[in-house]
């Protein structure tokens, strides 16, 4: 872990708990759908199990376990022979059973690692554990009064009561806990981006779904002199530093903002001679700050005990059967060797699986370099400009292949293809041949141009004479004649060259 930080002062030490929703059809312990949309009615995807009704029994979703095993493999984690579930007891309206089914001392994954790049450096963060659990429901804080519900929705400290929706309750969650290996808030962002990339490659995560990634972070400050060059910090120094837990982070950018704020808040405390209080703080996304929350339960207060309704899970028997696809790092390296791409193009094309898949299909038919330029630069650039994702065009692969073919076979100029055909295809959803025909962009066939050049020279003896007398305008006049004869579809540069060759011969 190469660091450029100065040797004096205080440095933040950060560890993360990342909660990701696993993208299954049904909830982790019951058959209710996980497929909700933002404006769905509350409490319409529930059953006795996820409502915690008496006597209802959970049954584990095999797909959730398979997804968790994939995550474990991708993180190079150890997956034990046997794992089990525990009950974590606490009382909050989002938890209908008054306990959450989670994992405690036998998590599905432990001792993993995730590599990512930050400001051009390779970083490596150790994963302490990753386990499977159920998502709680969602809560809305409301004030009394006659106004519309929306107008009465407020913050937790101003509310008179809560409204609870259990549609989300029971969605499979994976909690991924890192070691305190981060030394800068900005690196957290790079880590989260990479984690999402990997999860998306595994096909276990839908980044577009609201609340699909939530982060809690631990942060403390240590004297820089205790931080070794490789970023390691003695255990006793870490144990001594008071730390806070920052909750309610829901985006990559939010993580960086929340932790930058929290680091400077703690630095101010310490530099003013005050002790940092060990507490839980809530990140306020609107204000970009963190505020103190109620005193939280300590770990022993959760009274973890084994979940007797779920038998143990012997994953050893079948974890070998669960395959994971090629991951972003490996694919990037393969793109460099197999297609001869540069580092930048290779990482641009592999950071999202859908983009990489799209590229490989195009590269199979055309020169990989040309395909890389078209996908990485032109297509992604135009999509980005329109705030659109690659998914909006993945079913139009044939049309993009045709566009590249038109350029590769010299039927359309690169300029026209980039500036007119591609943009019109994206904006109007039409195929490239339609655009070329409608806009008259087809490069005239070579023979047609050659004939037009010969005709222009034969039919305009005065201009030819002027050309030989060194008159500048003559050549332009002849080019104009050819362009007119070919309906503007000839490439002016080519016409220029052909005319000169004809005239000077």
């Amino acid at each position, binding site marked *: 872990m190469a660091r450029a930080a100065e040797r004096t002062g205080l440095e933040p030490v950060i560890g993360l708990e990342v909660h990701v929703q696993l993208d*299954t*059809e*049904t909830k982790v312990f*019951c*058959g*209710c*759908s996980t497929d909700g949309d933002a404006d769905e*009615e*509350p*409490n*319409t*995807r*529930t*059953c*006795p199990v996820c*409502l915690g*009704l008496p006597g209802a029994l959970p*049954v*584990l*979703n*095999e*797909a*959730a*376990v398979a997804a968790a095993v994939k995550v474990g493999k991708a993180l190079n984690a150890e997956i034990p022979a046997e794992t089990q579930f525990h009950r974590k*007891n*606490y*009382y*909050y*309206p989002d938890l209908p059973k*008054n306990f959450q089914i989670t994992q405690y001392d036998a998590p599905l994954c432990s001792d993993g690692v995730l590599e990512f790049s930050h400001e051009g450096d390779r970083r490596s963060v150790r994963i302490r554990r990753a386990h499977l659990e159920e998502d709680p429901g969602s*809560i*809305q*804080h409301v004030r009394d009064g006659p106004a519309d*519900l929306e107008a009465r929705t407020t913050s*937790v*400290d101003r*509310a*008179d*009561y*809560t*409204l*609870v*929706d*259990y549609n989300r309750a029971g969605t499979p969650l994976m909690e991924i806990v890192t070691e305190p290996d981060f030394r800068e808030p900005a690196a957290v962002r790079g880590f989260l981006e990479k984690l999402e990339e990997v999860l998306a490659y595994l096909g276990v995560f839908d980044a577009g779904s609201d609340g699909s990634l939530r982060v809690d972070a631990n942060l403390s400050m240590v004297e820089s002199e205790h931080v070794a060059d490789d970023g390691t910090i003695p255990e006793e120094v870490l144990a001594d530093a008071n730390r806070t837990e920052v909750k309610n982070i829901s985006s990559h950018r939010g993580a960086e903002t929340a932790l930058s704020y929290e680091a400077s808040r703690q630095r101010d405390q310490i530099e003013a001679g005050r002790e940092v209080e060990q507490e839980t703080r809530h990140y306020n996304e609107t204000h970009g700050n963190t505020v103190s929350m*109620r005193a939280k*339960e300590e770990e022993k*207060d959760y009274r973890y005990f084994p979940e007797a309704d*779920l*038998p*143990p*899970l*012997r994953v050893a*028997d079948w974890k070998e059967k669960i395959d994971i696809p090629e991951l972003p790092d490996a694919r990037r390296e393969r793109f460099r060797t197999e297609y001869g791409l540069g580092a930048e193009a290779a990482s641009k094309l592999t950071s999202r699986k859908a983009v990489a898949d799209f590229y490989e299909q195009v590269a199979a038919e055309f020169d990989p370099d040309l395909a890389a330029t078209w996908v990485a630069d032109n297509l992604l650039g135009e999509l980005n400009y329109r705030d659109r994702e690659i998914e909006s065009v993945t079913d139009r692969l044939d049309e993009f292949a045709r566009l590249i073919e038109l350029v590769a076979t010299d039927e359309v100029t690169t300029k026209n293809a980039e500036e007119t055909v591609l943009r019109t295809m994206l904006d109007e959803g039409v195929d490239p041949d339609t655009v070329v025909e409608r806009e008259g962009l087809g490069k005239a066939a070579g023979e047609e141009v050659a004939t037009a050049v010969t005709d222009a020279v034969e039919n305009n003896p005065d201009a030819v004479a002027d050309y030989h007398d060194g008159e500048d305008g003559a050549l332009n006049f002849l080019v104009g004649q050819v362009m007119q004869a070919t309906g503007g579809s000839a490439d002016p540069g080519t016409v220029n060259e052909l005319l000169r060759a004809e005239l000077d011969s």
Partner: protein
Amino acid sequence: MSESPERVTTEDVEHVASLARVDLDESEAEAFPDQFADILDYFAALDEVPETESEPELVNVMRADETREGLTQEAALSNAPESEAGYFVGPRVS
């Protein structure tokens, strides 16, 4: 294993009650330690039973990832003491 278990104190009772969001008045909080002691003494008899190793009868019980019909909103809310606009009404939280 035969010595009597550690006694539950009034502070323990108050702490657990606060975690469980249960309001106990002072007399209740003071009455519970004796009751807990009686209950724990009674169950201490189990310490005399020899431990046996037992394998769990079931392992790897799982279901396929297939959607099943759940409850309607009306049915889901039918046992709730109070509901509003399709939501369960809960207490304010801190």
